[in-house]
């Protein structure tokens, strides 16, 4: 009999009950709540006269709708304000701990929870947000759910689920200097496609994954959903344990020792068999830039926008033509000739301290191109912001003509005031280049923080491995 995958171990340790058809009641250790996908869940709970099953398993923060400027003035959009205030009221009524908008621990839910030690290895973690896959970087089973399921977890601390198939993405070799976890995950999506992981839980493994920091692993797992997989995960190692140690909500003393002993087993057995295997060579990966309206529409920075005349079939040709028309790009344009109007450095994918350091390292002593209208730098959380300021990164950005904002989801999905105008082109460190994602008619190119920062300086995409050229 073959050994167990990490996913098998996480799944099996959370099974409460299994039906004859395989439908499984799975126990949820941690639910993260935010203002957009929770109001109807609380309303449902209230309408049925139910109480949360286990209040302390939940933690809330406001992130999607919050302004990134002048917070002391509150939220000017009355509809957004009502949603954020509704979260405050619901948390107060049901006794759920919340890091509200002006709490210094507030931040993007997927940055905040690992940072506070609220995400621990071996947990099941859910949130009404597809990027919950992020938490898999700590050796958890983490996935996004809808609002009806948010209510179900509040009421029962469980979810009905079916076991996914397992996929391992094994990455050999070493990423070149200037090539990051973001480039790696974009290259993986380019290889397997946006539906390549549908129905699978993906484990990222291999020497290049082991070599990533926890922050890099979070970037990698964050975009598992962009490959169609609800969950991405990485086995626990010493780096994981070092990351968690000492965080505010992490266990201490004897509980810590017991936890660490248990976490040592959170990896796939050597003889585990996966339903699908993908192998990548990290050394062959160049900085990636998306050119279309789906994350799989990606190429490397030395490449060109594709020519629909060369598409494999009619469906692909139609898809490429529609994407190029929306993006305002001509076939076969070199990526480095694409000029940009705005830059967004932030999001649950790339707004951790390491991301900001990488961007600042490129920017130091330079100024944004005159043709670039706006560069937003939006830290992922209050503690990230404070750390960046302690390191002087905010000065580097401000001196370069960038804006230094307060934490939140911001222009990743443009629910607040931060957005693209129709036709504007943006280099973004976020996760989705869908039509209208960053503002109606806006055009998004997904890149790493260093690539975004360099594009802000140059006014067009450049290869950070050879930049500046002098």
């Amino acid at each position, binding site marked *: 009999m073959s050994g167990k995958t990490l996913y098998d171990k996480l799944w099996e340790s959370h099974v409460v009950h299994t039906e004859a058809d395989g439908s499984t009641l799975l*126990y949820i250790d941690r639910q993260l709540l935010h203002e*957009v996908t929770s109001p*109807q869940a609380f309303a449902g709970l209230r309408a049925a006269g139910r109480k949360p099953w286990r209040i302390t398993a939940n933690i809330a923060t406001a992130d999607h709708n919050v302004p990134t400027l002048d917070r002391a003035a509150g939220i000017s959009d009355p509809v957004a304000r009502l*949603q954020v205030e509704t979260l405050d009221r619901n948390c107060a009524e049901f006794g759920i701990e919340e890091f509200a908008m002006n709490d210094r621990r507030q931040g993007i839910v997927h940055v905040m929870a690992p940072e506070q030690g609220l995400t621990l290895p071996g947990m099941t973690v859910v949130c*009404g947000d597809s990027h919950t896959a992020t938490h898999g970087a700590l050796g958890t089973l983490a996935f996004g759910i809808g609002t009806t399921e948010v209510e*179900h977890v509040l009421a*029962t601390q469980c979810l009905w689920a079916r076991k996914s198939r397992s996929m391992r993405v094994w990455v050999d070799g070493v990423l070149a200097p200037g090539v990051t976890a973001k480039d790696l995950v974009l290259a993986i999506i380019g290889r397997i496609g946006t539906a390549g992981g549908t129905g699978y839980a993906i484990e990222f493994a291999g020497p290049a994954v082991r070599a990533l920091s926890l922050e890099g692993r979070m970037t990698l797992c964050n975009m598992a959903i962009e490959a169609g997989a609800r969950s991405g995960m990485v086995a626990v190692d010493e780096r994981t344990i070092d990351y968690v140690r000492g965080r505010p909500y992490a266990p201490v003393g004897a*509980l810590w020792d017991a936890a660490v002993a248990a976490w040592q087993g959170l990896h796939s057995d050597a003889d585990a068999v996966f339903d699908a295997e993908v192998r990548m060579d990290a050394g062959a990966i160049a900085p990636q830039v998306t050119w279309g309206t789906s994350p799989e529409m990606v190429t490397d920075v030395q490449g060109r926008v594709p020519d629909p005349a060369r598409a494999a079939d009619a*469906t692909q040709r139609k898809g490429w033509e529609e994407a190029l028309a929306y993006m305002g790009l001509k076939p076969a344009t070199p990526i480095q000739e694409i000029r940009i109007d705005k830059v967004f450095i932030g999001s649950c994918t790339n707004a951790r301290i390491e991301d900001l350091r990488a961007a600042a390292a490129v920017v130091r002593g330079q100024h944004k191109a005159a043709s670039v209208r706006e560069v937003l730098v939006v830290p992922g959380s209050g503690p990230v912001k404070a750390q960046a300021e302690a390191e002087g990164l905010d000065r580097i950005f401000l001196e370069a003509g960038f804006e230094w904002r307060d934490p939140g989801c911001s222009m990743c999905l443009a629910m607040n005031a931060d957005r693209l105008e129709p036709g504007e082109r943006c280099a973004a460190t976020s996760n989705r280049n869908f039509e209208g994602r960053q503002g109606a008619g806006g055009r998004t190119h997904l890149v790493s923080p260093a690539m975004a920062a360099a594009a802000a300086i140059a006014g067009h995409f450049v290869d950070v491995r050879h930049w500046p050229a002098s």
Partner: protein
Amino acid sequence: MQSFTVVEAVVAPLDRPNVDTDAIIPKQFLKTVERQGLGVHLFAAWRYLEKDGVQVPNPDFVLNQPRFAEAQILLARENFGCGSSREHAPWALADYGFRAIIAPSFADIFYNNCLKNGILPLRLASAVVDHLFHEVRAAPGYRLRIDLPAQEVQTMGDSRYPFEIEASHKHKLVHGLDDIKLTLALGDAIAAYEARRGREAPWLFSAPRSGATRV
């Protein structure tokens, strides 16, 4: 939840792969604290044009064509519903009047969210979906009959296409059952799990330290 047994209705074809939930319901409509009223915003960016500062229906968009006005079945391409977990997407589809979506494949979270809202996400082979796209285009007023208990899609020409669905999903849809009540009937099993897990992994059940040290 509205139950789903047999639905016979006009079919609207949406011929694009990878339709994402941002397209189904753009983010400016996610600020609501209600479940109802989103149908008017369904596919907003494709469905409306801005003319002199006001929104007018885009005559080229499929749902604005009179022959599809009564549609309750959406025919779609692969990976429908990819992207965000927003349940606003199935809420908008249901509020508009769609009862079923037929596609070769769906994104996982969207698929689940449909089931929680009385919408049947129905998978048919690509070749069959292709064939149905041809039929819909060729015949104004084209209808399909979906029989969930029999797990069969029937054309008016009496072609029949069986489909697969998990037994538990089918049971809940056919009877319009909400999960929470069913799950709470297993409350003893949940409590027993917590007691056992609390012994094995006590750090998961220790209350968060109140006033935990701020980073």
